[in-house]
């Protein structure tokens, strides 16, 4: 299985359903922080440019808020594509975006456990 098929399989998304309307990018609250924009996730998969997708910063900026998933008129779910790319990265050795040593200084008194759990799930294998 090549990387493109792998992304399609993990995400369960058919990128060819996209009609390139850009509603995902219009709706994304993390848009400004992203280097590759939500509507581009789809075209990167279409063209098989998974390497670039797997190297993007966007995957660490996505909030998993599902705004793009909810509002997409074609049910393409760009958020799922990005998550699949993230999976490919964190499943590789050394692909983690968060290490245990990094955490203590980031924690404050009020920090809910839920935050650590979620961040671990998203950033780490």
């Amino acid at each position, binding site marked *: 299985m090549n990387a493109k098929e792998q992304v399609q399989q993990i995400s369960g998304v058919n990128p060819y359903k996209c009609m390139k309307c850009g509603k995902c990018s219009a709706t994304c*609250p993390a848009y400004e922080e992203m280097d590759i924009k939500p509507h581009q996730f789809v075209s990167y998969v279409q063209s098989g440019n998974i390497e670039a997708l797997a190297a993007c910063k966007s995957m660490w900026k996505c909030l998993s808020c599902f705004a793009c998933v909810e509002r997409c008129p074609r049910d393409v779910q760009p958020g799922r594509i990005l998550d699949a790319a993230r999976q490919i990265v964190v499943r590789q050795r050394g692909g983690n975006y968060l290490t245990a040593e990094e955490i203590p200084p980031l924690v404050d008194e009020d920090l809910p456990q*839920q*935050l650590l759990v979620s961040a671990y*799930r998203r950033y780490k294998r």
Partner: protein
Amino acid sequence: MIFSYYPGCTLRNKAKDLDAYARASAEALGFTLQELDNWQCCGGVYPLGTDEIASKLSSVRALAEAKDKGQDLVTLCSACHHVLKRVNDDMTNVEDIRTRANNYMKLAEPYAGETKVLHFLEVLRDVVGFDTLKEKVVNPLTGQKIAAYYGCLLLRPGKIMALDDPENPKLLEDFIRALGAEPVVYPYRNECCGGYISLKEPDMAKNMCNTINESAKGFGAECFITACPLCRYNLNKTEQGLPVYYFTELLAEALGVKEGAL
């Protein structure tokens, strides 16, 4: 009436009040939250990958236990609710996930989505009823202008969560009205607070919470209510932001059971 109850990790620690007020209010309203015997953390986020099974198993365990008891499963935290409802949807509708999860679990009887997952707010709306709730209020919060903050996880994806209209929800507003206060409707009530991003990108989350705060203030709100400890944490980081309460705290207060709940 007894419901199975899944508190989740945060409600056992930093958000003990969210939990305690809910239980006290439930008793006052005539139903009981019975904590599951063996629950484990849901993982905080729903694993989107279609090939991820292991990370869904803790949810399946909870769902199956509720099924054995023949009870609906109630949650309070938006994240737990989101994960449990989506995993339950997978177990109902996605054959591949159902088969593989059941192969791992080796339950006496395979689980196929039989349990009904309810948010505490759904119980208030659909089981108790907001009219009944209104009657049971002893300290109406008259005059308070409250902004409901839904966040993203409670409502989306609308098709699966099926809690309310994901773009123009009414559930918390009706709840606020039932407590005698005035709901403030503002457009960012269903936009993300930043979620877990605040760990490594605190500025991003601050920006988002600023927008939410400004919008709610602009429409005249005096405070926020929310169901999610993480939303509350993030919103609280806003400088000169509105105070943020768990919805259960105001509920307990209105029902007159706040004292001694903690």
